[in-house]
């Protein structure tokens, strides 16, 4: 009787209860075709059911891996064994990890040149993706992971302290709980600018680790052991979402790269002399053509139209 009282001490949602019943029902030796048909009908009705079931069956499966660890029969003994040789523990639990997120699908979010898009993830996180960007998203049970290739995005991460949100951008890892920030990985440079909350940025080897607060920006050149942190207006970093490009002492090469990601012709620098210039100002542009024209008015450069695109040349 006491066991049943204990039963009630842990609350579970109705869906979770149903999912657990299914795991139990399907684990019986009497399981049959009718269970299969009804199970499909139950699963098909709602994504939330599939999620709840996957969570339960993954845990079920996790304990199988624990049980399968050679010559383990009792949890108490497992415990002591497990803490013995560290290497064995590390190796064995890789399996657990692999099994646990087996159902978490990888989503690929991409935008074309000149296209910005908003995505809403299942956990409520919102990702605004700048043009010519690509991200991979995997919402697992224990972590939410994003792998960033060439991309810029504003993350508005839904708070879930049990499932940290980890963004891998090259050799940098960004870990957050619930916050809003801009991440940019372009041309070998990674930048993180925080608007709200706290963001932890670590090198992939975890040797360096920086906690950023709102109004700070971190810049890191891929492959180098250092990163710079400075005060930076998050509004500026996120300005691309409103179709404005705002710069403060930005190398012209970065400005050209941003313009190229808009629709229209490619924008390139004519020579290194031009690349030495920095630019401060606001460019409001729908396409690279009009953007380059505005840039031509604000910076000491000439814009030249060529068959292969627009060429910026220092005056």
């Amino acid at each position, binding site marked *: 009787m006491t066991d049943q009282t204990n*039963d009630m001490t842990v609350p579970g949602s109705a869906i979770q209860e149903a999912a657990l019943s299914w795991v139990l029902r399907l684990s019986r*030796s009497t399981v049959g075709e009718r269970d299969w048909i009804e199970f499909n009908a139950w*699963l098909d009705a709602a994504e939330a059911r*599939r999620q709840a079931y996957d969570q339960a*069956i993954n845990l079920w499966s996790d304990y*199988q891996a624990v049980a399968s660890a050679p010559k*383990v029969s009792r*949890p108490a003994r497992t415990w002591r064994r497990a803490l013995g040789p560290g290497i064995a523990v590390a190796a064995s639990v890789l*399996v657990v990890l692999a099994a646990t997120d087996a159902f978490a699908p990888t989503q690929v979010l991409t935008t074309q040149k000149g296209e910005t898009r908003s995505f809403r993830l299942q956990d409520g996180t919102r990702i605004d993706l700048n043009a010519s960007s690509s991200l991979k998203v995997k919402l697992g049970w224990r972590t939410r992971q994003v792998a960033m290739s060439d991309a810029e995005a504003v993350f508005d991460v839904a708070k879930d302290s049990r499932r940290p949100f980890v963004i891998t951008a090259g050799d940098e890892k960004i870990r957050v709980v619930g916050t809003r920030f801009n991440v940019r990985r372009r041309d070998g440079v990674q930048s993180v600018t925080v608007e709200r909350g706290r963001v932890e940025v670590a090198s992939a*080897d975890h040797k360096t680790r920086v906690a950023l607060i709102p109004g700070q920006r971190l810049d890191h050149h891929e492959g180098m052991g250092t990163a710079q942190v400075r005060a930076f207006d998050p509004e500026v970093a996120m300005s691309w979402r409103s179709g404005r490009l705002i710069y403060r002492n930005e190398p012209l090469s970065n400005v050209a790269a941003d313009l190229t990601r808009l629709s229209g012709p490619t924008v390139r620098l004519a020579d290194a002399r031009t690349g030495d210039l920095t630019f401060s100002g606001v460019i409001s542009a729908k396409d690279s053509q009009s953007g380059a024209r505005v840039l031509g008015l604000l910076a000491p450069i000439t814009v030249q139209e060529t068959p292969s695109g627009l060429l910026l040349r220092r005056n």
Partner: protein
Amino acid sequence: MVSSQPSSTQLMDAYLERRPNLVRFFAARLGSVASAEDLTQDLYLKISAYEQSAEVDRPMALLYRIAANLMLDRLRHERRSILRDEEWHRILRTRLGEEDVDEAPAADDALGARQRLTQLMCALEALPPRMREAFTLHKLEGHSHAETARAMSISISAVEKHISGAMRHLLHWGS
């Protein structure tokens, strides 16, 4: 006269559509997602070889019957404990042999893995004793509900209550 689609295609379509659910379904009985993935892979091979002309009335039902037979074969020919040991070694090898660039780096995995094992064990330790006993007998030692019921001198439905109670605790704990 328009001939109907080849039956094997219907069956394959059903398989492809239902693959995730097949894994989900058989993972419960086999106790592991990895075993269910294996089974589903075997099922694919079976279905690929399925006779084109065979009449398929209800592809979903046929799919189930083929899969269920495969499952029974697995359960019959290998004792569960042996199966699990083999599975363990097999996964361990494949897992350690491959490299997934999108996953967290190894050092982080090892750390997370250790924490995860600790978590699983602590969660188990924290269960009410009878619940833990039922869960351990059934899930970790591979006894059926009936065997567990006999060992604990309780009814099968009480065993199931304990196990679902344990799962509820563990889910809660792990989250």
